[in-house]
């Protein structure tokens, strides 16, 4: 364009082209250009300026494009009208509106819950300033012998040290370990503090606020600790804690800093104290295994990358290191991954997490259930609106004749749906507040989840309500907007609205399938839970009180003597773990040339007596101990693996503990002993005599009618021996039940959801039943006049619904069976078989209630006097 050199700047032209009406533009723009050419004689700048001012001056009412603006004005007016119509229609149809609003509100309260929960989950570790650059190393452990793959959140100290020393691009490395809980003594006061071990870069990578002390140096030296504010309050009044010395056992710890209490939305466990990782290193300096390639079970390593280091670079470092190291090993391989600090929670299902952990798969399950409930409620709206639309047909007809477009009718009915959904939102919020505490306690089961309200949630809730409104209202809106004005007004009664009839039935089938599947799920979960807690474990657990011994220096014998003084105490034994409660200890034993990894419990002779272990052959071990060897009671699996043909052959044989070389003589072979809970496979198991007085639990067999009084007595005995630690005693049966708490939760969750789904679908069914019987009153009257009996009428009216219920149960029963049989119950080694007793009761209950709902309506309709109905025809 040659003219451009002489013309005004293009952007100025664009302005006028933007606002000016098409029919005026060419002429006006031409004029301005002509003037511009004239002004160019003076100076280009002046010409530009005048041109620009002219453009602004010409922006007048008659030049700017009007159609759009006017369209908006009418749109606004129409909206007002739609709004009024919607409110009136909601108010007029009280039954339908309340069914819709209540149904939506109930399901939306769960939606709100999920939104709040998710928003909190995505908030984890967001407060760290360097979160973009901080990555945590995770480990994939592959056992080459049995092919097991374990995904670990932990890794080895070794890899962290190596990366820090030899690899460029990594600014800092942090090593953490959990479980640093210790008793500290200061000024004659002894208290236990929960803690973690952290290396000196703790405050460099994480943004925790230090109140006193230097965050850069606080954790460098061995035997230094940083306290949180609440820990400081436990020990100190006013004086500054920094520089003070705490005593723990023989060790002296210097306090080097005080930090603010940690927030709950982090992947770290809640701690009151951080001990320098250097202490850990110093204590373990003689142990070869501490900093080794394979010690990946306890330590957590975080990397702070330099700004320009890509994560691929570090990934390649890790691949390089692991391929080199794996080549040296026969039994396992390790590979690593990097997870950004802000993406640790929710995570992808790793074990050995340092703190709170929420698995994506669990969240997804909850999301799917929420979506199903929401869809069920939306279908209610869809169904009832379509059914009711016959009454709105005339309104649509008039609107269309007056000139409403398809789009306008569509937006009117969408608006109505959104309005209902927003009313439901308000109700839902109230319900949400009611169910929130229960949800946190039962489903989330984590102290770190608070579900606190934030102002931006309002926006989310609102968006959610609008989306639900659109989803629920779209179908009826489309159906109504497609109607032809002429056919409506010519003869509304002959209108074929019910092309959607099959669709409506499909929606009801969906609702009832969901309800039935959920109630079956609840039944199955409950049956499995009941089965699990009543399963015969092969040892006595009733009336056994387990006391955890947190202090390893405790004089157990003294405690036993004190406890035995209480008459209600029948027997006392010690053990290092409690079988059936999900914890496990492993041990390598040698027998001649063979070696075997076995699950074991270290117990005293009293343990066998107290727990009533039953033997195939042999018996328990004697009360007194020998220095040279210890006794062991094994199960049949060990016999089998070590090649004894009969259990008798094993008696008296000597095994060797591969860890410390101790000889173990077999004193008996026991019958089924359920070491693991029913979800875990049962490996070879043994009970090893407690040859070095190590014990973490005291098992007390009690007999008392007054448990509260007994507990007081027991606690008194405990207090006389251990003043520092709280008395923690629980009945074994309760602890065993806790191992299956997940299934109890599942049962409660499914029950809750199925109740919601059932009530929503029943409300929907009621609405539809009311509508159909109303629409068919004339038909009923005519039939009655012609001689149909009430029974006949009820049959005719409910036939359709019965078919729907039958189809639903035909879908729901196999579906629930399949899901539980192939996905859920396979987790159990010992499980129930799903039969009619699990599948049918819930379904029959729903069918019964549904039929009662329909029956109520049909009975009423069949009882009407035909004369009343037909008189006015």
């Amino acid at each position, binding site marked *: 364009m040659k*003219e451009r050199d002489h*013309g005004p700047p293009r952007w100025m032209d664009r302005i006028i082209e933007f606002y000016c009406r098409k029919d*005026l533009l*060419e*002429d*006006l*723009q*031409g*004029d*301005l*250009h*002509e*003037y511009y*050419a004239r002004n160019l004689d003076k100076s280009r700048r002046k010409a530009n300026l005048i041109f620009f001012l*002219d453009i602004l*001056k*010409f922006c*007048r009412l*008659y030049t700017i494009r009007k159609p759009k603006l006017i369209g908006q004005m009418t749109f606004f007016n129409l909206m007002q009208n739609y709004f009024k119509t919607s409110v009136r229609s909601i108010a007029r149809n009280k039954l339908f509106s309340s069914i819709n609003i209540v149904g939506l509100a109930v399901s939306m309260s769960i939606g709100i819950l999920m939104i709040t929960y998710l928003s909190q989950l995505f908030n984890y570790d967001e407060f760290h300033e360097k979160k973009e650059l901080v990555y945590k190393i995770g480990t994939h452990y592959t056992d080459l012998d049995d092919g097991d793959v374990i995904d670990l959140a932990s890794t080895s100290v070794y890899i962290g040290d190596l990366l820090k020393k030899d690899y460029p691009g990594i600014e800092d490395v942090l090593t953490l370990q959990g479980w640093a809980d210790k008793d500290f003594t200061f000024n004659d006061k002894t208290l236990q503090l929960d803690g973690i071990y952290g290396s000196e870069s703790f405050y460099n990578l994480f943004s925790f606020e230090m109140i006193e002390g230097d965050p850069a140096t606080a954790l460098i030296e061995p035997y230094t600790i940083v306290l949180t504010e609440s820990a400081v309050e436990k020990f100190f009044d006013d004086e500054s804690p920094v520089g003070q010395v705490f005593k723990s056992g023989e060790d002296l710890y210097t306090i080097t800093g005080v930090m603010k209490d940690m927030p709950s939305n982090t992947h770290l466990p809640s701690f009151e104290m951080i001990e320098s990782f250097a202490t850990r290193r110093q204590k373990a300096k003689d142990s070869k295994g501490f900093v080794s390639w394979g010690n990946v079970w306890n330590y957590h390593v975080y990397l702070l990358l330099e700004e320009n280091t890509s994560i691929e670079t570090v990934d390649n470092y890790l691949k390089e290191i692991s391929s080199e190291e794996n080549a040296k090993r026969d039994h396992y391989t390790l590979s690593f991954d990097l997870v950004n600090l802000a993406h640790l929670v929710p995570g992808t299902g790793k074990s050995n997490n340092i703190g709170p952990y929420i698995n994506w798969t669990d969240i997804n399950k909850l999301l799917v259930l929420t979506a199903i409930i929401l869809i069920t409620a939306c279908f209610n709206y869809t169904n009832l609106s379509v059914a009711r639309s016959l009454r709105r047909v005339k309104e649509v007809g008039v609107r269309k004749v007056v000139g409403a477009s398809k789009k306008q009718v569509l937006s009117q009915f969408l608006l109505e749906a959104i309005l209902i959904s927003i009313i439901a939102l308000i109700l839902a919020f109230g319900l949400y507040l009611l169910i929130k505490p229960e949800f946190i306690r039962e489903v989330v089961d984590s102290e770190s989840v608070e579900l606190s309200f934030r102002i931006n949630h309002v926006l989310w809730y609102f968006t959610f309500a609008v989306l639900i409104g659109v989803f629920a209202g779209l179908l009826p809106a489309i159906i109504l907007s497609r109607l032809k004005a002429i056919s409506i007004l010519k003869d509304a009664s002959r209108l074929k609205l019910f092309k959607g009839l099959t669709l409506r039935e499909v929606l009801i089938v969906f609702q009832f399938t969901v309800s039935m599947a959920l109630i079956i799920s609840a039944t199955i979960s409950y049956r499995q839970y009941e089965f699990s807690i009543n399963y015969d474990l092969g040892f006595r657990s009733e009336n056994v009180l387990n006391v955890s011994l947190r202090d390893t220096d405790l004089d157990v014998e003294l405690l036993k003597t004190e406890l035995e003084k209480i008459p209600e105490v029948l027997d006392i034994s010690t053990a290092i773990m409690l079988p059936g409660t999900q914890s496990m200890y492993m041990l390598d034993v040698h027998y001649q040339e063979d070696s075997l990894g076995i699950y074991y419990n270290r117990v005293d002779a009293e343990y066998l007596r107290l727990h009533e272990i039953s033997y195939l052959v042999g018996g328990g071990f004697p009360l007194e101990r020998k220095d040279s060897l210890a006794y062991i009671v094994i199960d049949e699996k060990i016999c089998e693996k070590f090649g004894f043909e009969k259990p008798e052959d094993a008696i008296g044989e000597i095994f060797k503990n591969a860890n410390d070389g101790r000889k173990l003589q077999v004193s008996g072979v026991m019958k089924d002993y359920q070491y693991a809970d029913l979800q875990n496979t049962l490996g070879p198991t043994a009970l090893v005599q407690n040859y070095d007085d190590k014990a973490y639990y005291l098992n007390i067999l009690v007999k008392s009618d007054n448990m509260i009084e007994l507990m007081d007595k027991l606690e008194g005995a405990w207090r006389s021996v251990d003043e520092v630690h709280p008395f923690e005693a629980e009945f074994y049966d309760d602890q065993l039940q806790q191992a299956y708490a997940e299934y109890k939760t599942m049962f409660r969750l499914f029950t809750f959801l199925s109740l919601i789904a059932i009530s929503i679908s029943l409300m929907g069914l009621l609405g539809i039943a009311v509508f159909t019987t109303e629409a068919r009153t004339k038909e009923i009257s005519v039939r009655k006049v012609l001689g149909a009996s009430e029974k006949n009428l009820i049959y005719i009216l409910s036939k359709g619904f019965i078919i729907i219920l039958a189809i639903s149960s035909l879908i729901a029963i196999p579906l629930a069976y399949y899901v539980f049989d192939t996905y859920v119950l396979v987790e159990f080694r010992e499980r129930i078989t799903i039969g009619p007793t699990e599948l049918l009761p819930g379904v029959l209950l729903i069918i019964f209630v549904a039929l009662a709902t329909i029956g109520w309506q049909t009975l009423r309709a069949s009882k009407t006097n035909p004369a009343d109905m037909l008189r006015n025809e």
Partner: protein
Amino acid sequence: MKGTNLGEFEEIVLLTIASLLTEAYSVNIVDEIADITGRKTKLGVVHAVLKRLEDKGLITSELGEPTKERGGRRKRFFTVSHTGKVSLMKAKEQRDKLWNNIPELVFQGIR
């Protein structure tokens, strides 16, 4: 109807269009008014008036040939319509009547 009476500036513009014959387009009109009356009118004002006159049906317009100085855009030429001519005549008649009613001696001493 309000529009039957011409405003003062409307009348001037209308007369200018009539006097320019086939050359009456916005820029020319502004120039011509400046030449004859000595009034510095703005294009925006003239443009608005032209628009109003066209809405009243007093003038008609058509697009001419594109010219280079206008960046290849066409001019809009205006002509006075029949109604326009009638209202101009009517306005002139009214004024003539009024002039005729004024005795000579009123203007004595001015000429």
